[in-house]
């Protein structure tokens, strides 16, 4: 049976592991290690290979949920994880130093994939940093000639994660 998978990507600390945990029926399998570089200033543990969770669909098929490692130096993993993926959810930490630059990194890296399928962007921790606002993200997407949904989300809230997935499904079905 063909593997069905969704990929969560985005900046370190944006909440990819938490988002997958919100959906997965199994405890998320991850490869977190103690952060030792600049990442340690922001996060005690970080993912270096991938997160993995899964959901069982009504016909018994497994929807596999993968989270990419956040740091760019592990970007060789990104392409591997994206092969054959149904869709992409990009999470950006708005309380990070340069959230728009972070987004640019992922949009650039995954552009070919996004153009051929679709993606949804979730901006996290907007309660800690209100700027940039969602309008600025949309302006940024317009510069890149991209039309994607952007939401402010709290990935600890399952409803927010479900909403992103629901939006992604709608984009895959209706945004052509």
């Amino acid at each position, binding site marked *: 049976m063909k593997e069905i998978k969704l990929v969560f990507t985005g900046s370190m600390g944006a909440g990819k592991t938490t988002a997958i945990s919100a959906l997965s029926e199994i405890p998320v399998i991850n490869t977190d290690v103690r952060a030792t570089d600049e990442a340690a200033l922001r996060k005690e543990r970080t993912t270096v290979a991938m997160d993995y969770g899964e959901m069982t669909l009504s016909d018994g098929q497994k929807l596999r949920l993968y989270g990419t490692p956040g740091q760019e130096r592990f970007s060789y993993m990104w392409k591997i994880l994206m092969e054959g993926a149904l869709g992409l959810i990009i999470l950006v930490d708005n309380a990070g130093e340069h959230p728009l630059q972070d987004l640019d990194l992922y949009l650039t890296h995954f552009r070919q994939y996004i153009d051929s399928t679709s993606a949804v962007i979730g901006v996290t921790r907007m309660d800690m940093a209100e700027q940039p606002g969602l309008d600025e993200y949309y302006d940024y997407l317009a510069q890149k000639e991209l*039309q994607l949904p952007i939401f402010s989300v709290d990935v600890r809230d399952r409803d927010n994660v479900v909403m992103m997935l629901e*939006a992604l*499904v709608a*984009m895959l*079905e*209706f945004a*052509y």
Partner: protein
Amino acid sequence: MHNTLSTYALEKRDKLFISSMLELTNKKFGINWALDETNAQVTLVDVDQPTGANFWEAYQSEKKLIAFANTNHLRASWFLEKPLRVQPFTELLKKLSETLPLVATEEVGRAEKTTAQTRGGVQRTLNESAQHYDPVHYLSGVLQTALLAQQAQVVSFSGFDPLYLVPQEKRCYTVTMNLTRLTPAQKTLFSARAEQLLQRPVTLEQARSAIAEQELKPYDIYAFIWGSALLSADGRLLTGHSMQSFVRLKQWPNFTHLPREPAHMKLAAFMLKNAANIPRIASATQLPLATVIDFFNACALSNLLLTQKAQSTSPTMNTTQLVDKPISSEKRGLLGNILRRLGRT
């Protein structure tokens, strides 16, 4: 003289059966029913189909509908069990005939002519001039007026805690509520007419003091405008707009903090990429026209729409790329499976 019947969300096979069974029952049982897809007295709706269930939900209070399903799970007054069989179908039509006036044959003919002129199988025709939605008569208008006047005020509605409007902050304050999952009682506030609302101007200081004292929670005032537009328009198009205008979404509504239904996701996805008029949007998304209009109104009042009167020639308004859904039925099935798993169908 006839009675008229239309169908909604029926499978092609069932539609063919209905058509041939009508001929048969008319001849054999002396009843007189005609199919009329635009202006029928009664609509047979396959409520086992998601689009049919949506249609039922949107129109059950204002149209005479027959639920067509495996079981009468909606407890419909008029119900036809699957599969289609001649006798129950005939008996149902006979009973319905007793409750309905007859339609002159030439009227049916005119309606059939109109059917040929309509696009996309959209079944609801609106008298736009008579059925416009003017927010000034609803909570949405009260909120807009407060924003324009920059006047803080407290709004009371029977049985609800006070709603403090603080337009200087673009916020309103009230008790804790989950805007994405409004209770039926909360929905009555959002659909309230202006005359049901008691408004009292207050100073900013008085508002802030009351908010602090009562520990009220802040909400984006536009989320309330969105909710009110969505829940009070009841399928009537926002005044000043046309069904034929080509519209596209500038950006997605931030559904994290807005009342929403699964249908709104489909509409947002389609309208983000395509400029189209309202009938075309309803047709492409297979959603009831009333749902599309309510969503359109909410987007318009939230300033999320790019609108133009005629078919676009602008390079930013992609009207020429409208195509039939390119995804395979297998993929559509998979996406439907995911939504079912999420409980979002």
